[in-house]
């Protein structure tokens, strides 16, 4: 048996929704790290215990990377800020936008993307972090421009077959790829339109909002752009428009199906100025043929008077079959599907504005099994809120 958790980052803390593998009824846990803005969450299942990582930003005290090995009951928070720019860079950490565990064969490796746009890497399980110099010192940096969310590195895509290759995306800088483990990075935006630039197809400067990849086909990438929906079949060397049959090619969220390399989900938004659900209908769009066509998924979703949207990390899938698909909205609603998006249920309403969603499937542990001791640390403990029952819907 296994337990499924939806990890939910909000502008005011972390919440979890817990369910059995049936994924029909959800129990709310949290808030954890109350009051802090959580723009990034990750579940790292590579160690002996599942670990949750959170990029926690306090309006007053800054942003720091924290982790929990007991689903939020306690948090390891470092004494000293663990993500720091080199002094000579003149940069200051503002927000942690993305956390990505490394490959399975490098269990101590973690990456995170931050604002101002930079990539940090840890090779000791998150105890220490170093900025990736090849990107920090990139000659394009001075010409990257912040989007509405700031100049953020928000997407990290690894290549499961090639440890030296990785893609990242920056708003607004576009897609960059390394082939040498981060020492050098090349812009990979050919074919992606920059509607807001006089030159509509510059080498870099695009506002890519999210990328998706299926690990079985690492060289094929999908991108939801600030205007534009794209696929690359050559590891980002070139991109093709695949916005066929969507109500808007503006949007943020995009995620891949866990088992079908041709299936991708997006949630379109009406224009960068209106930013409401197109036609005021809440619709997830799915392609099952790698972008040749898209179908709306609406069963169980409200189809009138919807002014809500989903941000770039607000859409996620789990690893079960049929896949669970989950999204959280700016207005604090979480919708869940346990049948790959065919139907949806409102799992919880009334949360703070949702910034990111992740899903984790964890095998239930036998009751008699020994528990790994917690990491010792000179670290602060966060308060332990009591779980409460979410509505069954």
């Amino acid at each position, binding site marked *: 048996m296994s337990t499924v958790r939806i990890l939910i980052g909000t502008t005011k803390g972390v919440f979890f929704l817990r369910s059995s593998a049936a994924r029909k009824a959800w129990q709310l846990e949290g808030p954890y790290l109350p009051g802090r803005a959580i723009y990034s969450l990750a579940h790292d299942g590579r160690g002996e215990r599942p670990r949750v990582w959170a990029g926690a930003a306090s*309006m*007053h*005290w800054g942003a720091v990377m924290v982790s929990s090995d007991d689903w939020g009951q306690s948090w390891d928070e470092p004494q000293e800020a663990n993500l720091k720019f080199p002094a000579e860079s003149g940069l200051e950490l503002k927000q942690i936008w993305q956390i990505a565990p490394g490959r399975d064969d490098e269990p101590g490796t973690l990456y995170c993307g931050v604002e101002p746009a930079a990539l940090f890497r840890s090779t000791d399980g998150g105890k220490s972090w170093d900025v990736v110099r090849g990107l920090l010192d990139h000659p394009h940096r001075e010409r990257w421009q912040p989007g509405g969310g700031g100049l953020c590195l928000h997407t990290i895509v690894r290549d499961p077959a090639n440890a030296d290759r990785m893609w990242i995306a920056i708003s607004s800088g576009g897609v960059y790829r390394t082939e040498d483990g981060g020492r050098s990075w090349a812009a990979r935006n050919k074919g992606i339109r920059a509607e807001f630039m006089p030159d509509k197809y510059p080498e870099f400067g695009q506002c890519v909002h999210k990328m998706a990849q299926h690990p079985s086909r690492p060289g094929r990438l999908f991108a939801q752009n600030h205007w534009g929906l794209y696929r690359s079949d050559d590891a980002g060397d070139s991109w093709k428009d695949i916005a066929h049959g969507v109500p808007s090619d503006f949007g943020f969220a995009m995620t891949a199906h866990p088992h079908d390399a041709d299936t991708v989900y997006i949630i379109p938004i009406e224009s960068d100025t209106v930013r409401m659900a197109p036609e005021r209908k809440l619709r997830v769009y799915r392609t099952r043929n790698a972008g040749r066509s898209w179908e709306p998924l609406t069963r169980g979703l409200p189809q009138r008077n919807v002014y809500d949207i989903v941000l770039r990390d607000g859409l996620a899938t789990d690893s079960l079959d049929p896949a669970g698909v989950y999204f959280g909205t700016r207005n604090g609603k979480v919708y869940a599907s346990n049948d790959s998006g065919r139907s949806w249920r409102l799992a919880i309403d009334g949360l703070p504005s949702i910034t990111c969603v992740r899903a984790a499937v964890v095998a239930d542990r036998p009751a008699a099994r020994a528990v790994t001791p917690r990491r010792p640390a000179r670290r602060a403990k966060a308060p332990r809120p009591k779980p409460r029952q979410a509505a069954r819907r």
Partner: protein
Amino acid sequence: MRVVFLIPTPLRPFAEGRSRLDLEVAGGPLSLGDALAALGKAAPGVRDRVLTERGEVRPHVNVFVGTESCRWTGGLATPIADGAEITILPAISGGAR
């Protein structure tokens, strides 16, 4: 010279739970920057939450020397007298949330 830092509740986990830190700081005359450097040695977790990695007071943190905000008295160059109380407080903020 002796300076006293008054630590707000959210930062006490980074100061071994203490609400005030009495520090002896060598030399003089002292500036607020000197005092914060001494705080950084005694409680680096507090320092990192008060100052950015560029060494500037975070925008939503107020540091008072006596009863006056350092923003109006010279920032980190504010002179510190022997026995001064330095109060760290979260600023009023968050109206957009």
